[in-house]
């Protein structure tokens, strides 16, 4: 199909580069430099969407980020689908595939449209609050149908193949917007020697100058822009980012920029390149030069395809060489829109009339239009549009001076395009992101940025300044001020001369009156995407939703993907009028990031898949991999969970590992435990303050287990700490607790007890730790070490230094399994070497690697707790039956002591940890099962406590469990019941948590 609306010449498109694209299954042609929107208009495509609520046909109304209707599904393959792409911002590329997001069977003839016509009147704002209530059970069914109508585009079903990333930027000055004001600000700051970043959402710098026919400094606007861009590019410390939307302005001048790196080239980014990049910018100063959006007027059936905003019409003509129609009626409240009439006429198409709502129109542009012989009708407005799928004509009537009511008879004019302008709204969005409220300016009928604590300056349209010469001046001024505030000498920048126009005063008008009252008049749309009409807003206020937030939420105004860029001000004005307030009294709603939507992938950056979170490995990880370990995630660590052999079930592996340790020898990679090297003459005193037990008498060469509480007396970590020297200790923590404990120690040292002479340094990664456990551990280790391992010289809870497998080592004789155990620590670089040597010698002892699960079973057989599994922040050492580990005789009131003494913490009936033996030894209690005294009691039952650890013990040939029971320590031998989800009730006896070797002889042999 020919591009019937394409001009032979003009615009910034490259007619030598024809592109083919597909829209709703049909092929069209466009040119390099087109957006989807300009190409569709060039091809005479009118309907691009069906409206959300009424399914009315909708066309393109704008040319930029404010477009509410032309929201398409883009993507040639399943994996590259992108929902809700704004056609006015998506550059055309060859082979682009897009389509409307709703309408059945097609967007041109949509069945839902009928329902919209029929049901439309049944759907005032908030109608869903008022119905679908009865009977309650039906809501789910109603909702199914409601959800059928939900959503615009769709998510791809296949996984995204593209890459994204984030770059951290720092600069002296961040300039947002590369229109005349932004370019001048950047240029001035750059010449002053500042580090500058300037970003603009469009494909090239220049802002509205790209679609302007003005002359600047004797050059065309485009050439003037090109010269400035060239100079900016010459500064090494200036970063220019086209196709980059500053979408968020956060506290302390942190801004996020979404740079589109490849969406303009194709579906998918070229290999090794990112599709989109987030720039995380920290700027000393910010200049907002975001310009202004033109406001459409609100009139009857103003949503029929062919109704557009005036400046957009000019943009399509001047930038893209596309005239979106043949016969134009222009309605305006101001002079600036007259340019559109001139552009249309110069494009060789008919301007039926300019309908000016003002009683009298004067000013240079008005005169220019009159000179062209174009009819100008003043004191009148387009009150209604005719046509269904495309404008076929308008009804024009005289209105009173305030624009409140129709005063004259109506006349009909035929046309196919209606351009309207209600003036301009500064783009204040970013300035609101940091909590600053915009302020209303009577003189420009618009909100401008309000007071802020950010180091922010504004220039140009956002400041309500629209005359080009003033805009340029404000840009330079902002650049100079930024430079000065940065301590630089502000450079001088010559202002180019531009034509200045005399302008007549604009009229404040948003909502065009109709001969009928608003509630009965043809629909007058305020928010196109959410089908919010002037009548709806009046109804909302009539029902008592008078606060602007109420109106917005009740009608859904501004909740669309355009976030009300086009409609919000009109909506506020209509609200204000119907509650009899001024616009500033009514106030504005708050704008939030994002300015325009951003792909999740872009925000996630590289932190996906294998880089979502670090995987931490020990020095022996390679061996674990080669020996078929399965892993447990503990914090960020990948710890061997168990080492299955071919054909084994998990339980079989665990049984084998458990038996090996108790009968011969096993080995565990314990490198992940937190380790903290503590030195200083007050180290011992410090330990006494952070642990619940005593440390005064621990001799050099000795180890001791310790419990740590928070000030509330609740256990939060535990571990063995060894005395390496009088002033030297090695503390171990749980794997997950390591970082937290070190920070905890530093906090108390730095803020509470700075007088104590002690230093802490993490050595977690420095030492590789392997636990050799089992009756044969001594024999095995003896083959590789020069340390005398005999029981009388190297006792349980001693540590010794020596060499293991030729490597200097510290060996700790401590045991978490209850067996004779040696924990070998060597510098991690030697970890794998020593580990492999142990296996070379261990074969004859059936040295068996075991993982966390076996470790958990073995310690449970001994009744040792695991902080985090058997504690949950609500148990004291006493609740754990570990009063032996609490030394209240200590002189200093250690952390946790006072907390434990609180009235609720000394109750006798607290949940306390006990051992649990199921009556049927073969039955293993599920962890998390809840105990009751009487399983026959009616629900809700009285719960006594939960099972925290439970396993099958191959060594005891029965199940064992640890769990909490109210007053459990006093209830040894009693029976409790565990009613399970599957209906079973498991009977268990409360017993000591120590199931094996209660005297602790095995570890002392």
């Amino acid at each position, binding site marked *: 199909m020919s591009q019937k609306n394409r001009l032979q010449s003009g615009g910034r498109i490259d007619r030598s580069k024809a592109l083919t694209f597909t829209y709703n299954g049909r092929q069209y042609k466009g040119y390099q430099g087109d957006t989807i929107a300009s190409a569709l208009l060039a091809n005479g495509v009118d309907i691009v969407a069906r409206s959300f609520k009424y399914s009315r046909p909708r066309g393109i109304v704008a040319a930029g980020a404010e477009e509410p209707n032309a929201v398409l599904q883009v993507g040639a393959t399943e994996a590259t689908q992108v929902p809700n792409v704004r056609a006015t911002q998506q550059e055309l590329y060859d082979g682009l595939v897009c389509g409307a997001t709703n309408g059945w069977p097609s967007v041109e003839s949509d069945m839902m449209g009928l329902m919209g016509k029929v049901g439309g009147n049944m759907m005032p704002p908030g109608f869903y609050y008022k119905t679908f209530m009865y009977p309650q059970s039906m809501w789910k069914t109603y909702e199914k149908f409601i959800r059928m109508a939900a959503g615009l585009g769709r998510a791809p079903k296949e996984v995204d193949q593209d890459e994204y*990333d*984030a*770059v*951290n*930027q*720092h600069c002296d000055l961040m300039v947002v917007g590369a229109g005349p004001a932004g370019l001048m600000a950047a240029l001035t700051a750059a010449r002053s020697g500042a*580090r500058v970043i300037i970003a603009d959402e469009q494909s090239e710098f220049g802002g509205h100058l790209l679609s302007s026919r003005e002359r600047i400094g004797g050059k065309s606007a485009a050439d003037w822009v090109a010269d400035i861009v060239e100079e900016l590019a010459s500064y090494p*410390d200036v970063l220019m980012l086209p196709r980059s939307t500053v979408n968020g302005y956060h506290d302390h001048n942190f801004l996020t920029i979404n740079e589109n790196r490849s969406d303009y080239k194709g579906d998918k980014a070229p290999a090794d*390149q*990112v599709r989109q990049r987030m720039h*995380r910018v*920290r700027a000393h100063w910010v200049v907002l030069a975001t310009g202004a959006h033109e406001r459409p007027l609100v009139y009857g059936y103003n949503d029929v395809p062919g109704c557009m905003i005036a400046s957009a019409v000019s943009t399509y003509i001047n930038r893209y060489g596309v005239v979106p129609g043949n016969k134009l009626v222009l309605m305006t409240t101001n002079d600036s829109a007259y340019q559109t009439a001139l552009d249309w006429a110069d494009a060789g198409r008919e301007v039926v009339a300019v309908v000016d709502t003002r009683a009298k129109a004067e000013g240079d542009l008005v005169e220019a239009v009159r000179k062209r012989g174009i009819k100008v009708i003043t004191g009148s407005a387009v009150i209604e549009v005719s046509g269904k799928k495309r404008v076929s004509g308008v009804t024009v009537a005289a209105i009173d001076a305030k624009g409140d009511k129709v005063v004259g008879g109506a006349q009909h004019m035929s046309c196919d395009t209606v351009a309207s302008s209600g003036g301009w709204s500064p783009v204040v969005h970013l300035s609101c992101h940091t909590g600053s409220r915009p302020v209303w300016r009577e003189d420009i009928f618009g909100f401008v940025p309000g007071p802020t604590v950010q180091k922010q300056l504004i220039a140009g349209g956002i400041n309500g300044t629209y005359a080009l010469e003033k805009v340029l001046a404000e840009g330079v001024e902002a650049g100079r001020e930024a430079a000065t505030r940065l301590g630089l000498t502000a450079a001088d920048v010559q202002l180019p001369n531009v034509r200045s126009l005399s302008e007549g005063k604009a009229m404040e008008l948003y909502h065009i009156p109709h001969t009928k009252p608003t509630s009965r008049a043809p629909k007058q749309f305020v928010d196109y995407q959410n089908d919010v009409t002037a009548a709806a807003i009046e109804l909302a206020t009539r029902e008592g939703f008078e606060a602007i937030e109420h109106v917005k939420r009740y009608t859904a105004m501004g909740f669309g993907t355009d976030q009300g860029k086009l409609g919000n001000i009109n909506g506020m004005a209509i609200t204000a009028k119907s509650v009899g307030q001024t616009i500033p009294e009514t106030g504005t709603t708050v704008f939030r990031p994002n300015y325009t939507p951003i792909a999740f992938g872009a925000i996630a950056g*590289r*932190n996906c898949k*294998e*880089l979502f979170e*670090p*995987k*931490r490995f*020990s*020095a022996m*990880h*390679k061996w674990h991999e080669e020996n078929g370990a399965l892993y447990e995630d503990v914090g960020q*660590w990948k710890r061997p969970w168990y080492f299955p052999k071919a054909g084994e079930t998990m339980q079989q592996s665990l049984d084998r590992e458990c038996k090996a340790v108790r009968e011969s020898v096993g080995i565990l990679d314990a490198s*992940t435990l937190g380790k903290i*090297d503590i*030195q*200083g*003459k007050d180290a011992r005193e410090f330990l006494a303050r952070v642990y619940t037990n005593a440390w005064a008498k621990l*001799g*050099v060469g000795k180890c001791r287990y310790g419990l740590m509480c928070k000030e509330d007396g609740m256990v939060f970590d535990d571990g063995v700490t060894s005395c*390496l*020297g*009088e*002033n*030297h200790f090695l503390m171990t923590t749980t794997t997950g607790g390591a970082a937290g404990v070190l920070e905890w120690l530093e906090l108390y040292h730095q803020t509470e007890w700075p007088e104590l*002479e002690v*230093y802490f*340094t993490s*050595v*977690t*990664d*420095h*030492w*590789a730790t392997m636990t050799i456990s089992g009756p044969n551990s001594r024999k095995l280790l003896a083959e590789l070490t020069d340390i005398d391992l005999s029981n009388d010289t190297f006792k349980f809870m001693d540590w010794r*230094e*020596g*060499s293991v*497998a*030729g*490597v*200097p080592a*510290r060996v700790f004789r401590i045991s978490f399994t209850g067996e004779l155990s040696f924990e070998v620590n*060597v*510098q991690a*670089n*030697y*970890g*794998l*070497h020593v580990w492999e040597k142990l296996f070379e010698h261990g074969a004859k002892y059936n040295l068996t690697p075991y993982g966390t699960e076996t470790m958990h079973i073995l310690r449970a057989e001994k009744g040792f707790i695991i902080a985090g599994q058997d504690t949950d922040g609500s148990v004291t050492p006493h609740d754990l039956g570990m009063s032996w580990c609490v030394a209240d005789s200590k002189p200093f009131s250690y952390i946790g002591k006072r907390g434990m003494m609180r009235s609720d913490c000394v109750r006798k009936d607290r949940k306390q940890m006990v051992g649990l033996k199921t009556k049927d030894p073969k039955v293993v209690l599920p962890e998390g099962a809840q105990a009751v005294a009487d399983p026959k009691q009616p629900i809700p039952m009285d719960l006594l406590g939960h099972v925290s650890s439970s396993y099958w013990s191959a060594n005891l040939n029965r199940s064992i469990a640890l769990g909490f029971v109210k007053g459990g320590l006093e209830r040894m031998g009693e029976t409790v019941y565990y009613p399970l989800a599957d209906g079973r009730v498991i009977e268990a006896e409360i017993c000591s948590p120590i199931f094996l070797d209660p005297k602790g002889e095995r570890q002392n042999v």
Partner: protein
Amino acid sequence: MSETLAPEKEATVTVAVMNQLSTAKDVRAESPLHHAELDKLASRNPRAGGVSLRELKLLGHLTLRGSQQNQSFMNGCAEVLGVALPTLPLTSVEKGSVSIRWVSPDEWLVVLPADQAFEVERGLRAAIEGHYQVVNVSGGQTILELSGPNARDVLKKSTVLDVHPSQFPVGKVAGSVFAKSTALVRRSGEDTWELVVRRSFADYIWLWLQDASREYGLVIKH
């Protein structure tokens, strides 16, 4: 070799010092990135690229803690290390094979040949009076050196530090976030940067750097 083995001296042992370096032959030491086989990669890919990476592996790393007010500490360090501890925040000094990074007002990282770590620690302990800490952390970390015209671009993807030359002169040191881990970053030359990273995170950072460098081309160096 170590006092702690001599029972009669036990009572007087204040701090356990230990030569952690193995002198035995047939003992294999593996750096945190050993499994990545960087040397193989290096010999395989001499091709050009914007970023180069090499591991400065198996060096001696000593953490020093002490007060700048403690003259004995400051003098002792200067004497034993042959260069005074940098007291200006975020700076480093380098003398021969020894480099010292400022970490905090009372913490420094000394990097030196592995076989000097024990002697230096002993020397420091002999020379310093009062409150201080010396810890050998050689096994717990490694140094990755990034260089080349795009090294700074890779850093900007990885850390929130401002690495612009005007803000990060040669010799500056800063500890910060690195991807989702941490690193002590030092600019060791015009286009050369050293990252001190923790052993257990080394593989993650290696994966990250390959990913972040792809668009510039990553060259592995010996």
